[in-house]
């Protein structure tokens, strides 16, 4: 059996992380993390600022190299891949950055079209149609001609999401998707993430501080402390955890 890119489908989990270590100078950020994410599952990673949550996402997509350990994406070891092969895997992964990271010299439409123009076999007309559909999915189809500086933070996140979805990824990485947004906009973004799970069956890893959002979108939660996973399970399971740190972290809800 083969997928749409004519690659054999394997039954490996979407993401398997084993004994992952990462330090910056003397500061240990990740200290032997192990995590498995099944296909179609949404895992939320919680933890205090500076506990390496964003670093974990960047390691997963190969933007940073781990000191040691293994990361397998759909069975493919990421840490040893050459540049070309790495890019092939990256096409299967979408990344929504904390500040959306839209290209500020390009319009909203051009931002979404940017990965399509370079990494898809679609014709020009098909690409335009795809951009329109993606922008409609996130409710931004009326703002295609605007520059990122002319739209609000919430809108930028939506466009960032549309851009991340452009190559129809099988895995989505969200770096604090609701940070800096008002509760209503944050709720809308969470609904978009839920929609992706239901309609596209995308595997997601969401790094967030938004406990309420985490409860809404997660199948499973992981709590990081000092570079280690200290709690793992569904929201209800973690809620029952007696560890003072875990209890304090979730008491915000």
């Amino acid at each position, binding site marked *: 059996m083969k997928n749409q890119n004519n690659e054999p489908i394997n039954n490996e989990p979407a993401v398997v992380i084993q004994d992952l270590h990462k330090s910056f100078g003397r500061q240990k950020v990740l200290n032997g993390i192990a995590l498995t994410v099944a296909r179609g599952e949404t895992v939320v990673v919680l933890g205090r600022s500076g506990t390496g949550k964003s670093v974990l996402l*960047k390691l997963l*997509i190969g*933007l940073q190299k781990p000191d040691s350990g293994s990361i397998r994406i759909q069975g493919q070891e990421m840490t040893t891949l050459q540049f070309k092969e790495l*890019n*092939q895997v*990256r*096409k299967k*992964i979408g*990344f929504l*950055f*904390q*500040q959306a*990271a*839209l*290209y*500020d010299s390009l319009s909203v439409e051009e931002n979404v079209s*940017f*990965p399509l123009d*370079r*990494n898809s076999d679609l014709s020009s007309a098909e690409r335009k149609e795809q951009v329109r559909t993606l922008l409609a999915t996130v409710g931004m189809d009326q703002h295609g001609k605007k520059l990122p500086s002319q739209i609000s933070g919430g809108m930028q996140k939506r466009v960032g999401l549309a*851009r*991340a979805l*452009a*190559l129809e990824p099988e895995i989505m990485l969200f770096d604090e998707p609701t940070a800096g947004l008002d509760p209503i906009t944050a709720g809308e973004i969470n609904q978009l993430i839920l929609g992706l799970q239901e309609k596209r069956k995308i595997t997601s890893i969401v790094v967030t501080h938004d406990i309420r959002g985490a409860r809404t979108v997660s199948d499973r939660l992981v709590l990081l402390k000092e570079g280690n996973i200290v709690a793992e399970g569904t929201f209800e399971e973690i809620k029952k955890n007696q560890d003072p740190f875990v209890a304090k972290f979730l008491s915000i809800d």
Partner: protein
Amino acid sequence: MMVYLIVFMVAMAFSSSTVILSDRLTNPFVVVKDSMIAFFEWIGDLIIFCGRLARVALVPPHEGRELLRQLEAVGPKSFMLVALAGAATGVVLSLQTRDSLTRLGAASLLPTVIVFSLIKETGPIITGLIVSGRVGAGIGAELGSMRVTEQIDAMEASAIDPYKYLVWTRVLACVLMLPLLTLAADFFGILGGWATSAFMAPVSLRLFLENGFKTLDFHDFLPSTFKTVIFGFIIGIVASFQGMRTKGGTEGVGRSATSSVVLCSLFIILADVLLVRIIQVLFP
């Protein structure tokens, strides 16, 4: 030749390290140690940067639209500045040289001296320095702010090589535009020189040019103009490199813009020393 090379390397070491460490001038031993480490890191990173750029530069598909945007940003948008600087240099050369030549009783050589001086040295170096300031700072700041706002990460995450899209287009634009801008500086410099001469003692432009270009041949003109290709390369590479390795938020962006200008200007002056000597050896 070796002496020049050693001077060039030492100056590079000093400049690259001082710019990076200028905010940590405390204990002299620590400064020397940190400077040496920073220098070798800088050189190592630069070699890796150039290697990565060389690997993607000529591989299709090419980023034609972005290249055009960069050509416009470097060329037409620097034109007025370069033309003005060229004209001002021509005027100053004319004013200063007239005085010296008159004292030596060789006032008739004025057009030759102005044309020679502008085409062989002043035009290229003025263009290099002006473009370093305008374009070097621009590239350093733009790529720096793209780095700190994760736009470059976003590009890599969607399997697009920023070295191809952002860096190579900027390097190529600088390389292609520098010789053309140099011609503009030469042209307006000569025009400025003539206008000033004509103001002091009436002389027709035709006569001025005939006298000026009488002893000039292609060996004088071509190597001097095309050495600016190297200047363009230096500006593109150094400014992009400083921009791409930006760290530390908006403060880091400011540092990248400043260090881009400082390093580009310095390396252009140092490279000019080598290039002038090489040209003298190859085109005697």
